[in-house]
């Protein structure tokens, strides 16, 4: 039997167009001081978020984002049929801890910083196929836990290179649903998704993740445009997760080289949106929480208000582990994309 919702090589079509019923995000204080500061649902007073450890704080932020999302939709935990999500920790522990409290059937995902797009992509299929509705798609990250796992202790004195990025402390939760008759009429839905391939162009520098991820981003975009014959200009925005300053420029150059020039004025990067340049985040924000919180605080509201009609949301991930990095392995990159549309009245 043929997979009938498949378009071309990597793209899927959501026939029932799952609705985005509600969304919420919770972030850390540094993000709260950024340009999107007043758009987040919850800004934590401190990076500890009242917890004993930063890992627990990360889990609590994610849980809080889910709670706010549920209350916005006016639904209880029991009525949610699945939760998909992941984070940057070993064994995606923050998500597991959050799911332990929420008691919703949980599917853990790991896509490094691409996790938000991955959870939407897979969640969209579950919802569209009639396997779960409503369901939650989540992702989160925390600066302090990512630093200690991938880099150095917080108080270790070292200089970051100009291409280094700053892991965002934040979490986002998006509720997908097939139900058109909910009280607050949702105005946003998922139309298509594009599964990314792992692309590795031999970048080994863990302080230049934008460069490691840009080829994967270009590959996914090219695959999407090849599969669907869509015009890049038909989108109001083509949004990348956390390519940062270096990666965004490389994406433009490399896509052009691959034969799919992108409209520069329509490109946007969450990592470059979340912090002020004066916040000393070097090449921009990164982490699962970066794409997740900007999606829920900035992108979805704009679509809901009708300012944007159709956007391509693509989060990129650098699939690196400290172990294989130390063994000299290069960094595999990945990018997943979903197309989000405003519902026409």
């Amino acid at each position, binding site marked *: 039997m043929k997979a009938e919702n498949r378009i071309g090589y990597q793209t899927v079509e959501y026939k029932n167009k799952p609705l985005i019923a509600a969304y919420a995000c919770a972030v850390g*204080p*540094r993000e709260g*001081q950024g340009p999107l500061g007043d758009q987040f649902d919850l800004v934590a007073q401190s*990076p500890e978020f009242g917890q004993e450890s930063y890992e627990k704080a990360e889990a609590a932020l994610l849980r809080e984002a889910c709670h706010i999302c549920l209350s916005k939709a006016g639904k209880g935990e029991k009525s949610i049929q699945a939760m998909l999500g992941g984070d940057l920790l070993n064994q995606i522990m923050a998500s597991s801890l959050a799911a332990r409290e929420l008691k919703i059937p949980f599917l853990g995902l790991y896509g490094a910083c691409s996790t938000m797009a991955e959870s939407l992509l897979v969640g969209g299929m579950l919802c569209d196929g009639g396997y779960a509705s409503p369901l939650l798609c989540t992702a989160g990250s925390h*600066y*302090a836990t990512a*630093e200690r796992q991938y880099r150095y*202790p*917080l*108080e270790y004195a*070292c*200089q970051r290179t100009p291409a280094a990025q700053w892991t965002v*402390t934040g979490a986002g939760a998006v509720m997908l649903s097939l139900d058109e008759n909910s009280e607050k009429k949702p105005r946003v839905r998922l139309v298509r998704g594009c599964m990314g391939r792992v692309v590795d162009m031999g970048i080994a*520098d863990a302080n230049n993740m934008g460069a490691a991820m840009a080829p994967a981003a270009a590959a996914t975009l090219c695959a999407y445009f090849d599969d669907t014959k869509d015009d890049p200009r038909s989108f109001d925005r083509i949004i990348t997760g956390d390519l940062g300053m270096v990666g965004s420029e490389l994406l433009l150059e490399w896509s052009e080289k691959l034969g799919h020039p992108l409209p520069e004025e329509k490109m946007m990067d969450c990592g470059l949106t979340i912090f002020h340049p004066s916040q000393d985040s070097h090449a921009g924000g990164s982490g699962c929480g970066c794409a997740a919180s900007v999606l829920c605080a900035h992108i979805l509201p704009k679509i809901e208000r009708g300012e944007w009609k159709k956007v391509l949301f693509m989060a990129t991930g650098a699939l690196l582990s400290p172990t294989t990095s130390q063994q000299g392995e290069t960094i595999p990159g990945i990018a997943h994309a979903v197309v989000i549309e405003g519902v026409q009245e």
Partner: protein
Amino acid sequence: MILMYIKAFLVGGALCALGEIIILKTKLTPARILVCYITAGVILSAVGLYAPIVKFAGAGATVPLTGFGHTLAQGAISAVQEIGLLGAFTGGLAAASGGIAAAIFFGFLAAVCFKPKPKQ
């Protein structure tokens, strides 16, 4: 006296600036720089090149990690002179024990007293 401070400043500063150049040119992590410096200090000291620098610059040569290597090497050599082959094993650590014990002790103490914080 003042001259000694100037020499310490210049030599110590030069060793640090050299480290910065190595970090920028080779992308070595700071931990590797520390290993390189201490090993270089041991070797330079063993072949007799580091003692003159210490004599010239004082703390400018002993405070950088190469000086730590120098202490280790000189400790090992003088212990070998005193008690023979056994000294190769006891001398180095004994000479450098102050700094190492202090780092362990104060490290532990800091863990008791303080919590790490991400910068805003």
